[in-house]
């Protein structure tokens, strides 16, 4: 399996990562090289094994639904590039009529 420049461009959109034309060319070559390397896993048959998500076995953890302090609003907002009325502010997301 190998990736085309068109596919890398599509991936970059999925990842919300703007790439230059030169980057698309160089990343396509690099990604294909990595794909070639990791293809080694195709030679082993593991259909009888369940996929493992964590190395150690974990069980679901429950806690009491108790009221507790959350992070301080002003301090959290202070890290935001832009804020207004205690909200994170972003460029417009809806078209005007």
């Amino acid at each position: 399996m190998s990736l085309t420049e068109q596919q890398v461009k599509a991936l970059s959109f999925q990842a919300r990562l703007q790439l230059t034309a030169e980057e698309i060319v160089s990343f396509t070559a690099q990604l294909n090289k990595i794909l070639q390397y990791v293809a080694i896993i195709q030679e082993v048959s593991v259909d009888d094994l369940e996929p493992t998500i964590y190395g150690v076995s974990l069980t679901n953890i429950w806690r009491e639904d108790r009221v507790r302090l959350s992070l301080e609003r002003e301090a959290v907002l202070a890290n935001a590039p832009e804020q207004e009325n205690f909200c994170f502010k972003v460029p417009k997301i809806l078209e005007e009529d």
Partner: protein
Amino acid sequence: MDVARMNLFDLRRVLDAGEISAVELTSLFLDRITQLNPELNAFITVTGEEALHSAKEADTRLASGEGITPLTGIPIAVKDNICTKGVRTTCGSKLLENYLPVYDATVVTKLKKAGAVLIGKTNLDEFAMGSSTEDSGYGLTLNPWDRQRVAGGSSGGSAAAVAAGMAPLALGSDTGGSIRQPSAFCGILGLKPTYGRVSRLGLVPYAPSLDQIGSMARRVRDLIILDHYISTYDPLDSTSLPEPPPEIGDFPRKLPGLRIGLPKEYFEEDLKPQIKERVHTVAQVLEKEGCVLVELSLPSLQYAVATYYILAWAEASSSMARYDGVRYGYRATGEQDVLNMMMETRKQGFGAEVKRRILMGTCFLTEGYYEDYYRKAQRIRALIKKDFEMAFTKCDLLLTPTTTVTAFKIGENFTDSLILTPTERCTVAANLTGIPGLSFPCGLIEGLPVGAQLMAPAGQEGILFQVASFCESVGVMPEKEAINGL
């Protein structure tokens, strides 16, 4: 007082005896950082003011004699992907140049409670994605043994800081070897604990199913103490282990009769012959003490690096989604709509290696690749786990090299950095299987340190400490340290 060369036990003694105050001790370490850091670049941020403030508090504690722990008044360096409230945490990325966490990581809270002094935030590859600390937005870290060489990574700043005596102890993080490999390259000890043993709350995630915070030090006992004080059950980390950590000095087994496994796959291929020789010397020393050497095989190890790449990068593509220019970090200006703002922010904010891993990880999770790569890698993770479980029926712990090479020259690995198997081959399996791995220095080759790695079943750090401690006591670790030349 030559505090840079002193171990924790000696520092403790002079502090407790009142021969030096915690403020004086911290000042001496700050002086050393001022002297050495401009060249070595182990620290991104030196927290001099905060450190002196906590040292003063430690002095109050020492004077009152109450609440003193082995870490009270002891300076500790913290990798800059571990959140420190009000102290900028950059993750080695320009994107987070001005990020001030609003809470402390649980490990930091624990250390502060113990009275430790956080002396600075150490350099790393951007978002811990790298093996050399060359790929940081804040310049590369040099190896204190040879300034033409890398410190390793991604916890290269912590490793260099401890090796050069700029701090007696440091915290790092390890996703595929990022504590153990730089520890080996810089001639110090580094532990990746059992997954879940140390809380990940406040560790900026790279690949959450593999990430683990751990300790770095120049003496086994120092490592044991730091590990003890950061190990805890944390209800705020859903992957935290509920079992209490082992007590300090709780060495459960006698060395005679202990079965040491030597998996042949670790001693093949590209392993430098002199490294093989050094690790075999360690094995012989242990055999002489009555340990039983067991040669065994871990056939699935050949798939470990590929499996690690697929899983780590798939997780990374998801972890990195949070950097969208909305809640924190850099935002590209001049974009009229939110989509372009996000795409441009990420374009300008991330370095090439991070971009590559995001793209590759996104690919592994798309239709057509998901089953054959991501799901398959998860199944191989189960296979590797099975192989290790099988190995641990034949032996009590494993002894391997930490890396197949010693510290490489700056720029040497960078030109072809896509596949870094020589530095990752020996370490990734411990992350995939969740077991603890400890790297300790076992000699020098052409003036550069060599690391040996011990791995044990999950939760059995104690046995690693015990064996490392014995090796230290019989002089397996080199007498010479980087610190002597500085």
